[in-house]
C-alpha cells in the first residue's frame, strides 16, 4: 500500500518517497550507549521493501523487525561490524546503504576520485600546452585567411 502511493509521489516530484515513522519508543534500549550505536547502525541499513529508506526512517513492519534485530544483536554483545556481517549474511549486500569495496563496487568507489584525477591531469596538460603555445610568436595570417576573416566579420552583421 505505502509503496503504491509513494510511486505516485515519485512520478512527479523530487520529494523523497517516505512517510517516516522512525524508531518507535517501545523499541528503544534502556542503555543510551547501545541505543546510540543502534541508531547509527540503523541509518546504514536499508529497509529492503522500501524505496531508498534506511530502517531508521521507515515505518514498514520489516524495518521494525530489523530495528529490533539490530538491538538484540547489540545486547548480545556483538560489535558494530559483527551486526553488519550478520545482516549481510542473512539478507545479502543489498541491505547495506554504503556498499562495501569489492570488485563489483570498484568502479562505484573508484570513479569519483578517478574522474577528479583525470580532470586535473587534463588541465595540467592543457596548461602546459598553452604555455608552450604562448611562447611561440603568433603566426601572421595568410592572405587567404585575412580574406576569410573579413568575410566572417562581414557576415556576422548580415542576413
Amino acid at each position, binding site marked *: 500500500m505505502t509503496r503504491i*502511493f509513494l*510511486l*505516485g*509521489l*515519485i*512520478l*512527479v*516530484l*523530487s*520529494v*523523497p*518517497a*517516505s*512517510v*517516516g*515513522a*522512525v*524508531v*518507535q*519508543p*517501545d523499541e*528503544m534500549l534502556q542503555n543510551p550507549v547501545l541505543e546510540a550505536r543502534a541508531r547509527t547502525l540503523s*541509518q*546504514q541499513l*536499508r529497509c529492503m521493501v522500501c*524505496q*531508498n529508506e*534506511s530502517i531508521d*526512517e521507515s515505518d514498514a513492519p520489516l524495518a521494525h523487525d530489523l530495528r529490533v534485530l539490530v538491538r538484540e544483536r547489540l545486547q548480545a554483545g556483538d560489535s558494530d561490524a559483527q551486526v553488519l556481517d550478520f545482516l549481510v549474511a542473512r539478507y*545479502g*549486500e*543489498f*541491505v*547495506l*546503504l*554504503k*556498499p562495501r569495496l569489492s570488485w*563489483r*563496487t570498484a*568502479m*562505484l*568507489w573508484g*570513479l*569519483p576520485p578517478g*574522474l*577528479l584525477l583525470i*580532470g*586535473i591531469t587534463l*588541465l595540467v596538460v592543457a*596548461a602546459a600546452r*598553452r604555455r608552450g*603555445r*604562448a611562447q611561440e610568436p603568433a603566426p601572421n595570417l595568410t592572405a587567404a585567411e585575412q580574406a576569410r576573416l*573579413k568575410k*566572417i*566579420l*562581414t557576415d*556576422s*552583421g548580415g*542576413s
Partner: protein
Amino acid sequence: MIAELGHYALMLALGLALIQGTMPIVGTRTNDPVLMSIAVPTALAQFAFVATAFTALAICYVISDFSVLNVFENSNSQMPFIYRLTSIWGNHEGSMILWVSILTFFGALVAVFGNNLPAVLKANALAVQAWIAAAFHLFILMTSNPFVRIPQAPFEGQDLNPILQDPGLAFHPPLLYLGYVGFSIAFSFAIAALLEGRIDAAWARWVRPWVLGAWMCLTVGIAGGSYWAYYTLGWGGFWFWDPVENASLMPWLAGTALLHSAVVMEKRGALKIWTILLAILTFSLSLIGTFLVRSGVLTSVHTFANDPMRGVFILAILVVFIGGALALYGWRAPLLKQGGLFAPISREGALVFNNLFLTTACASVFIGTLYPLALEALTGAKISVGPPFFNATFGPLFIPLTVVMPLGPLLGWKRGDLLGAAQRLLAAAILAMLAMAAAFAIEQGGPVLAPFCAGVAVIVMAGAVTDIAERTLVLRLPFRVALRRAIGLPRSAWGTAFAHFGVGVTLLGIVAATAWGSERIAEMKVGDNLDIARYRITFTGLFGRQGPNYHDIVGRFIVRRVNGDLIGVMEPSRRTFPTRNMTTTEAALMTRGVSQLYVSLGDPLQNGNVAVRLYFKPQVLLIWLGAALMFAGGALSLSDRRLRVGAPQPAKTKAALHSAG
C-alpha cells in the same frame, strides 16, 4: 468538448513544432531569410496552442469533469479549489502538459526577445527548441494523453494523493520544471552554434540570462522540495540522497558549472568548447531527471515493463537527444576555435577549479544513482547506494570547492595575485578560525568535522562580504564615498556576493541542523513533560478535528521555556483521508529565530498514550534562507544592465571595420 479541444490543440502544436523544426534550418542552409523567419510566428503559435491545451485540462479539473480519466483518477469534488488546480500537475500526464507548456513558453520568449540575435543563430536555436517540443508532444499524444475519456462518467473522483494535498505542490513542480526546461534554451543555443560551426563570446552573453533564470528557479525549486519533505515526512530530515532528489541535484550542479564557465567565455573568450559541452550535459541531465524518475527504472528494473510503450519512448528520446547532441559535439566541436589565454592562478583559473569540482561532484552523484541499476542489469547482483556513500564522496568534493570560493572573485582576470587575495581574506579567515574554535569548544569534543564545516561556511560568508568591502573600499574611504561606489558597482558583482553568501548560509544551516540538533522519542501520557534544548513541552491531550476532506486526530502540546515561561502551543496531528483511506503525519513546527522545534505524532496507542517525536533543529531555516539568497543573487545579476541591454550589436563592428578600412 473542452477535453477534445485540448487534445486537438496539442496535435496542432505538434504540427507547428514540426514546421518550426525544419523550415528555419532549410532557410539557414539555403540562406533564405523568409524561411528562417518562420521560426518566430510558429514558436508563438505553438505556445498559444499548448497554452490552450493546458487551459482545457485546467478547466476539466476546476469543473471536476470526471468523464476525463485523468481528472477522475487524480481529483475529487470535495477537495479545496487550490488542490483541484494543482492536481493538474500532481500526476504523470498532467505534469507532462506543464512541461511542454513551459518549454514552448521559453521558445516564445526567445522568439519575442531575441531581436538582437543573429538571424541564423536564432533560426537554428528555435528549430532545435522545436525538435524537443515535437518529441514531447508526440510522447504525450502517444503514451500519456491526459484527455482520454471514460465512457460512463463516474459521480466522484478518486482524489489526489493526500501527500500531494499541500501548498508545496503549487510551487515546487512548476519551479523545478522552469529550471529543468530553462536549460533547454542553453541546449538549443549550443546545438545551434554547433550546426553553424561558429561560436564567440557574444554567444555566452545571449545564453547567460537564460541559464541564470533557469538556475534561480531550480535552486528555489530544490530548496522548496527540501522544505516540503522536511515538514511532511515527520522526522525532520531535509535531504535524503533519494534518486528523485539526485535527479534534480545533477542538473543544478552542472548548471552551476555552466553559469560560471559562461562567465569566462563571455569575459575572456576562453572555455568555449567546454561551455558548449556543459550546456548539452546540463539539459541532458534535466531530461534524465525528468524521465528516468518517471519510468520507474530507478526504483527497479522491472517497473519498466509496466508500460513498455512509455519506457521505450523515453529511452528513445534520451538516446536521440543526448546521443545526437554528443555526436554532433564530437563532430563539430573541433571546428570551434579556442581563445583567451590565462595563467593557472587567475579568475579564470578559479572558475576552472569550480568547474572541475562541480562536474566531478555531479558525476559522483550520477554514478551513485545509476550504478546499482547498471550492476543489476549486467550481473544481476543487487546493491544499495544510500546516503553514507554520497556523504563520503560528495562531501570531500564539495568542501574544497567552498574553501576556494571566496578566493575566486578576489583574483584578477588573466593573471591573479594569490598572495594578495589571501591577504585580503585574512580577516575572513580569522573569523572562520574563531567560529571553528567556538563551535569546537561549545560542542565539547564532539565530531571534528562539524566545527570545521561551520568554519568553512563562515569563511564563505565573510569572503563574500570581503569581496564587496574590497570593491567599495568601505574601510579605507569615507562612508559616503564608499556608499556611492557600492551603488555604482555592477549588479552582477552584488549578485555574485549574494549568491556566494547564500551558499555559506545554507552550509551553516546544514551543519548546525545535522550535527547539533537534538531528538527525543518518547511515549507520553496526558500531563507528561519532555525537555529538549532550552524548552519543555507538556502533552495536554488528544482531540478530533474535521477538515474539508480529511479528519485530524490532534495532539496538543504546551511549549514553555525550561524556567516556566509560556511560549505557545503546538498541535501535530495524524490526518486521515477517507477517500483513499490513508493517514499522513502532520508535524507541528515552531520557529524560534532561525531554529525550529518540531513535533510529530506516531499512531495513538491503545492505552490513550501517544508516541511523540520531538526535535530541536538549530539554525535549520538557514538552509532555505541561503537558497533564497542565492535566488536573490541570481535576480540581481539578471537585472545587470549589461545583460538587459544584450550583446553589442554586430552592426557596429561592421561599421567600425568599414570606416577603418
